[in-house]
């Protein structure tokens, strides 16, 4: 598949500090959705690079931005030495021969009003590929190559199954002999029995035509099956990058650990150390300051005075902070504030109940208990912002203040986490404690 050494020498795709924001062009302010927020990585020739992450983490937008199907806001994408983001219309059209995309949904990615032959032929027609006769032959050859019959030329997509439709989509992507193909969840809409066949077809094609793949997936087993290297995305950021096997065997970023621990284990005892994350990812419109994962991270760095707290106690504090953040958010718009003033708030659990539910089970150090009580009083008085700030003052650490840098953790493996700094415990060590 790939040799590690030529990855350093001459990568095919170099992405550097890519940012794609949505909705920033709106007239009336509002924070843009930071779908891709400063992502950098390289893809070597002939390699399969995987991007994994939860849905909504921006991985599809990343793929589309690389192909210039979305307009990136800043950063650069270099393809074989050319800067894609500065290409003019005509150069862009010419460049499109080199890079294609295979879509997730085989029913909506091909135009059902065209025959299969015309679908596969269209890219050839657009780029004036050879003579009409050659194009027809090329289509027959492609159909044969992806496992369809040349006589399917005159059939309509209605007459095919999902797997066969995906083969049509692959044939179309291959038509112009591209070097690079973005596979956007190519098998996630297919039956499990068909998935393996399509993946193997993709691997065969890669060998035959020296293709470079960017595979976007949320299915970790698919990634492990065909990717050479993987990037893990969370909330528009690349949390960790590394060679697949290495990353799967020894993940260093807390988020990667949490993600990988979600893979079902065939051995029930082996799955005992599963990490369950609290809550849902924050809105990409308003990501946390500092590390984007800090609101959910079970490996978060604590202040020295809080080191002695048990995991359960720390979780209670974190949850209390979550509750306050939510409460404050309920009062951000003027309309919500007016409603609160009029006493017409949405019904919420009284803060005393929340406190007793979270903190009654165990005894906390006096300073912690005091802060919690003080916060509760502020909430009762309606001072949500002050309450949130008080908790922040008491409990926040570097995780919430500073963006973590990318740290080289092993050969070819890099991760964004403050714990890789020498003054803190590595996530691995923290877990074993």
């Amino acid at each position, binding site marked *: 598949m790939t040799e590690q050494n030529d990855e350093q020498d001459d990568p095919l795709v170099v992405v550097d500090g890519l940012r794609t924001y949505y909705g920033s062009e709106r007239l009336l302010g509002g924070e843009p959705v930071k779908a891709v927020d400063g992502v950098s990585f390289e893809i070597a020739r002939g390699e399969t690079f995987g991007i994994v992450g939860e849905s909504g983490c921006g991985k599809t937008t990343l793929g589309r931005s690389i192909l210039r199907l979305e307009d990136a806001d800043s950063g650069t994408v270099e393809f074989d030495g050319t800067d894609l983001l500065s290409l003019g219309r005509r150069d862009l059209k010419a460049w499109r021969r080199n890079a294609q995309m295979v879509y997730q949904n085989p029913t909506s990615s091909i*135009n059902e009003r065209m025959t299969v032959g015309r679908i596969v032929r269209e890219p050839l027609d657009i780029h004036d590929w050879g003579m009409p006769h050659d194009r027809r032959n090329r289509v027959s050859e492609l159909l044969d190559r992806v496992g369809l019959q040349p006589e399917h*030329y005159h059939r309509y997509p209605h007459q095919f199954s999902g797997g066969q439709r995906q083969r049509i989509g692959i044939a179309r992507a291959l038509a112009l002999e591209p070097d690079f193909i973005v596979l956007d969840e190519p098998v996630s809409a297919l039956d499990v029995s068909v998935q393996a066949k399509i993946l193997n077809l993709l691997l065969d094609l890669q060998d035959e035509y020296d293709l470079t793949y960017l595979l976007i997936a949320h299915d970790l087993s698919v990634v492990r099956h065909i990717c050479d290297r993987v990037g893990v995305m969370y909330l528009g950021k690349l949390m960790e990058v590394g060679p697949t096997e290495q990353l799967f065997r020894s993940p260093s970023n807390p988020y990667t650990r949490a993600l990988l621990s979600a893979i079902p284990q065939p051995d029930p005892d082996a799955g005992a150390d599963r990490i369950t994350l609290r809550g849902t990812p924050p809105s990409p419109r308003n990501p946390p300051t500092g590390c984007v994962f800090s609101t959910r991270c079970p490996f978060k760095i604590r202040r020295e005075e809080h080191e002695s707290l048990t995991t359960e106690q720390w979780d209670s504090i974190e949850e209390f902070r979550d509750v306050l953040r939510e409460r404050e958010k309920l009062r951000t718009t003027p309309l919500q504030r007016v409603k609160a003033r009029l006493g017409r708030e949405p019904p919420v659990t009284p803060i005393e109940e929340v406190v007793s539910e979270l903190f009654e089970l165990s005894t906390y150090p006096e300073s912690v208990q005091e802060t919690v009580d003080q916060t509760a009083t502020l909430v009762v008085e309606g001072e949500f912002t002050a309450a949130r700030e008080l908790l922040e003052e008491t409990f926040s650490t570097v995780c919430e203040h500073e963006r973590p840098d990318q740290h080289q953790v092993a050969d070819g493996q890099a991760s964004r986490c403050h714990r890789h700094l020498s003054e803190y415990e590595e996530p691995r060590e923290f877990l074993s404690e």
Partner: protein
Amino acid sequence: MEYRPLRERVRERPRPFLLWLLGAFVLVGIELGRIASGLVEIGDATAAALETVSGGISDALAVGGATAVAVWLGIGVTLALVGLAIATWTRATLVLRVTESIPLRPQQSLDGLVFGLALGVGGWFALQVGAVDVLARLASSVRFPLGWLGELPTLTSRETIPNQGYQTPDGTWHGTFLGLSPALAWTLRVLVVHLYVAAWLIWLWTGYLWYRNYYRQADWTPRDDVIQRLRYHRWGQFGMVVVLLFLTMAAFAPSLGTTTAEQNIYAPFSHTIEYYDEELGEVTDILVGNANLNTRSQGYAAENVGPMSYDQYDRFHPFGTLTDGSDLFTFLVHGARVSLIIGLLSVGVSAILGTVFALVSAYYRGLADLVLVVTGDTIMGVPRLLLLILLTVILADTWLASLYDGGVLLALILAATGWPFLWRSFRGPTLQIAEEDWVDAARSYGQSPSGIMRLHMLPYLVGYLLIYSSLVLGGVILAVAGLSFLGLGITAPTPEWGRAVDLGREYVATNSWHISLIPGIMVTLVVMGFNAVGDALRDAVDPQSDAGVANASETESRGGGV
């Protein structure tokens, strides 16, 4: 199975094709005279229209000032658009040959301008040299043989099966087909016309089936399902029959009428008829106009010729007579032509506008969409009837109003005020189509915006286009009738259904009820027919709305898009 062009497939198996062609030739041959004279008529009308338009333009230029500027601007924009269309469709380019440094879009527009300019210069040059004369001579040399062919007898003409004649006291009929009574002769002719139309339909259907069996390479296409679904759509079939009858009426108006339009409507005092005068005891001549004075329908028994009756001059009136004594049926069949032409013209223009605008606003969104929304909503915000009346009155004295007795003007006004309704209906579905992955995929391999709109969005709009066009066509016929009823729009004497309703208004409750009622019922039926066809097409094209009767409201809302 290799792909082979249709021509090759036909060459390999020519028999069904030749047989079908033979049949088509026979069918054309039977009516060659009518087709030829129809072509001549259309050609003459086009020539007259062109003359009026060019006259109007040169008049406006002669006036000078703002009008001339506007006209020049109009000519310029039209030429540029035509040039752009040529550049886009043929993919020809001049600019690229000169320089490579211009980006794609400006290059295309530039090419459009260049082609437009070339067209304009060429046209101006042709005008100067007198190429128009050459063209006119060429046209007349084509017209001559066509005119000669137009003289050929045809199966459905009134000469072949005449129905006008007189009865002598011994009860025999003279001048009619085989001595049949005028009523029977007329019925026979109507029957023959419809049989001829039916023969064509059957032959076309046979041709389609043969194509499917012998020549088509795909063993199934989505269209097959559409046809299959139409097979069981009774309401739609009723609509199709009504629409077909209406179309036949418009196409064969001259032979369906009991008398000619000239004689009945336009020049009754230039034609004479023969009848047997009982007082004199001999066959005498009378001017049609004079005869009409005695056959008027004025509301009381003594002066009324009702449906399915003869008048004292032995003329048969299937629908009775009008207030001026002329034949209502002849008036109506010729009126069908007027309604149809106005309907097709205005719906065609507004459908093209609506489709193009919907594609543009869905593909580009943003500013383009906003501008169109504001424009469309503004037009829709003005009461349409008021706008129609206003524009008809304002433009009544211009050269536009002289085309087709004001019909073209009316059609254009209806199109200009009607496109937002179509566009609104198309916009929702088009926005949805523009979101589909295949549009994105087309962008990813470099398809141009116009290519995406044409290949990947338009095919999904065609269904909506047919549906809403047929629905709107009914509305246009109704609007034209309504305007005529108000005394606006189509000028007398050109027959228009609405005017017939207007003429008979005072007599609705009298013996002459037929004058208003019959045209009224026909308008209703035709509009209903077009709506039924629209419904059927919607159900056939969009299988998800199959619910049909069971869940009508849901079907409605889906048809409304979004």
